[in-house]
């Protein structure tokens, strides 16, 4: 069984959208081992629900313009409430994937977190903007901290995110 599953989402051609892929590469080199799987993807797709169903810890890495550039936002992920959801093959979410994992396989990771890095631009580019580049060490540290077993209450996570 994969103990920890890291799912990193991003497009390497769209500037800061690739930040999760950078994180994934470093985590793969640093933490490679039988208990950890790092998976990269260009979008959240329903097929990811299956590997989620047999891990103990899931960490979703992504970029978003909902946060200011370089801001590292951590939060626990919980499945969407309710039995019926819209599923768009082009717009899934970590919460929806957890719902699918629970509904389709009767299993879901007991712990699931998302780490989202605030992005400056998603314009065509192979490189990250300086603020986002600078956020990588912090995002890596947060990821390592979650993997090492630190558990955060939602309030602590909010506080961490606000730092």
């Amino acid at each position, binding site marked *: 069984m994969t103990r920890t599953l890291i799912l990193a989402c991003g497009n390497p051609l769209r500037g800061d959208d690739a930040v999760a892929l950078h994180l994934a590469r470093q985590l793969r080199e640093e933490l490679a081992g039988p208990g950890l799987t790092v998976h990269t*993807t*260009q979008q959240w797709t*329903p*097929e990811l*629900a*299956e590997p989620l169903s047999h891990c103990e810890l899931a960490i979703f890495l992504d970029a978003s313009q909902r946060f200011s550039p370089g801001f590292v936002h951590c939060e626990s992920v919980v499945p969407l409430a309710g*039995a*019926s*959801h*819209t*599923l*768009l*093959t*082009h717009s899934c979410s970590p919460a929806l994937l957890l719902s*699918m994992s629970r*509904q*389709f*396989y009767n299993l879901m990771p007991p712990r699931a977190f998302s780490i989202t890095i605030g992005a400056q631009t998603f314009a065509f580019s192979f490189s990250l903007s300086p603020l986002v580049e600078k956020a990588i060490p912090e995002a890596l540290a947060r990821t390592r901290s979650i993997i090492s077993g630190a558990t955060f209450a939602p309030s602590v996570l909010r506080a961490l995110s606000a730092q």
Partner: protein
Amino acid sequence: MGKTITIDPVTRIEGHAKITLQTDDRGEVVNAQFHVTQFRGFEKFCEGRPFYEMPYLMERICGICPVSHLLASAKACDALLAVRVPPAAMKLRRVLNLAQIIQSHALSFFYLSAPDLLLGMDADPKDRNIFGVHRANPELARGGIRLRQFGQQVIETLAGKRIHPRWVVPGGVNEPLSQANRDAILSAIPEVIDIAFRSLQFFKKNVETFREEIRTFAAFPTLFMGLVTSDGRAGYYDGHIRFTDAHGKIVADGLLPADYPQYLGEAVEPFTFMKFPYYLPLGYPDGIYRVGPLARLNLIDRWETPLAQQEWVEFRALQRNAILSSFHYHYARLIEILYCLEHMREFLEDPDILSTHVRSTASLNNYEGVGAAEAPRGTLIHHYRVDEQGLITWANLIIATNHNNLAMNRGILQAAQHFVRADKLTEGMLNRVEAVIRAFDPCLSCSTHADGHIPLHVQLRAPDGHLLDEVLRPS
């Protein structure tokens, strides 16, 4: 005075489109049009680019079947180089194509069409998705997810990534297959064959409940076109073009894909950006033909893998001569998944597939090249011309979905005339018209995707403008 009913967008297909239905004074549907409302322009903006960039530019046409464009484009470039692709590379390309067909067919059947087939055409639109499929039949839903996942995993294992890989190059592929990766794929095949087989048995058990749809979903005589091998098997990666008719008779055979301008014409209509290819000797629109899973199963003489061969024989027994209902694209798709899995195993069990000689090199030797392959939805043709520097001067792409354009338009008319009552629209009526299009699994661009929860507003007005009925489907 007649009325126009608009279904916009058509949901659970790849790309953007709408349907308009025209009624007469009595409220009978007299015309139906399938409008593809997006425009891509790939043929134009690749002009001036070096030919060796083409496989990676062209695969960007599509997010669902990029591998098909990658292969057709690489084959067109092989022709420009006049290069002989090493046998192992040929086999690896074939395995990649089979994986592509598996994942795309799984998406079409289990994610997009199974909601209609399991929950019924009249089911609440909010339930018509993979969650609804799971509630109705958990095993089928999980199986569909697993089949798509398997196809994508094979693509990723071979080509490095699931979407827009760069592994296929003019002259071959750029990396051999390792034994560990070969063994990993092979070890998963029995499980997915079992899933495909069970899904097919489930479909066969339930297909009779759709008798009315089978009779009215683009169920009419047309020609069928596809690639076949010299001994009459399905030629997914290569072969020659064969046309058969509604009686199962061969109309033309042994045609070279490169000669397509001699037997395919392309018409345009003002209401859509999608062209209307037709069989040139019969003219437009009498030269209507269909491609894709249904066509492939209609025009081959035999299949070589045991389970698929048995299913194909049973399928062909549904109707004398050719199977004419486009509803049976679904059935054909499931048989093809089974075939692709069996065939993939055969290739992977061949020791030569691990050969490290996977690429031939050459300089530009021809100024014109054509590449063709069977994409999940049908025959795909890429045709390029280059100058002495190898820069593209002209490109023409005949996309699989285009071949079916005439049949899709005629098909929605047939279904609308049967199901739509113009004085009282229901969701189920409109969904059946959409479902005709879904049966063909058109790939209108694959750049975007419309699920069943896009806003839809249909108004039915009397000749005096009075509102007779209205359907509002919020986002």
